[in-house]
């Protein structure tokens, strides 16, 4: 019976895969040239890199909600496992400590570079934020307690900052022009950089805290 069920499941999924594969290889005529439309609107979007223009301007509303998803995950994790007061983290070998000290500034620099690059070429707040988070995790592993303590005591202000600034811009545009996130093209570039800068910080802090939510449990290991 069990063998029959698993064979039936495998057959069913193979059939599904075939139908899907057939669907994604069918010729289509969308009738709308989205890349061209994006290229056409790029001049007034405030940035010259199309993906950043979509993420922060054309579909900035999605990005605002996505930052909120991160906050929800953080709240969900924190209401399960509150961080204990910082103690001496697990000591890591001297080599890693040295390596971390070397890598830390490099990672921070690359993160900031990615943020700045996002306006004109591949990069942006999310990738930069992830790198900054990696730097933060490295600092933790290398036993930088002061860093952990600072993070813990300012966690919610830091984690919410990105959404708060984004919300403020959203409310501002709504009040000024009656259009949610209708960024005036003259200031769009600056506004996007401001939004991204704060988002980068909050993303990094949130990701580190999400990591700690699981990693912190290790400290309680007998």
């Amino acid at each position: 019976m069990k063998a029959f069920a698993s064979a039936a499941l495998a057959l069913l999924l193979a059939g599904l895969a075939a139908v899907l594969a057939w669907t994604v290889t069918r010729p289509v005529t969308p009738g709308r040239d989205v890349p061209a439309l994006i290229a056409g609107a790029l001049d007034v979007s405030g940035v010259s890199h199309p993906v950043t223009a979509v993420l922060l301007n054309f579909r900035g509303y999605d990005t605002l909600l996505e930052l909120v998803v991160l906050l929800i995950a953080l709240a969900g994790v924190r209401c399960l496992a509150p961080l204990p007061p910082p103690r001496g983290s697990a000591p890591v070998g001297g080599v890693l400590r040295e390596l971390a000290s070397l890598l830390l500034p490099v990672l921070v620099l690359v993160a900031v570079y990615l943020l700045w690059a996002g306006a004109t070429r591949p990069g942006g707040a999310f990738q930069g934020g992830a790198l900054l988070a990696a730097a933060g995790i490295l600092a933790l592993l290398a036993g930088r307690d002061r860093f952990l303590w600072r993070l813990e005591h300012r966690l919610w202000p830091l984690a919410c900052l990105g959404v708060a600034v984004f919300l403020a811009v959203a409310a501002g545009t709504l009040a000024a022009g009656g259009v949610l996130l209708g960024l005036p093209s003259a200031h769009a570039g600056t506004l996007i950089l401001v939004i991204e800068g704060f988002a980068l910080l909050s993303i990094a802090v949130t990701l580190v805290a999400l990591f700690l939510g699981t990693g912190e449990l290790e400290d309680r290991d007998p």
Partner: protein
Amino acid sequence: MTLLPLAPDVLLGVALLFTAWRALYTQALFPAVVFFVAFGMLLALAWMRLQAPDVALAEAAIGAGLTGALLMAAVARLRGRDEDRP
């Protein structure tokens, strides 16, 4: 559509399928997570092939990197416990 030379893509596709299969069906959890991270890194390569460098960066940093770190930390904590019981 641009015609890409197919050979590297076929190779990458096979590697992606293999790593995904190992990540999902290896008995022990730790190697499964390692295969998953490898899957993410290969996927970043696939994004490059698809002319999506932004996604490649995000995949490498978040999809493979951070998710991998989260998974590793979790597996380290789970170690020594019954593999098949939550």
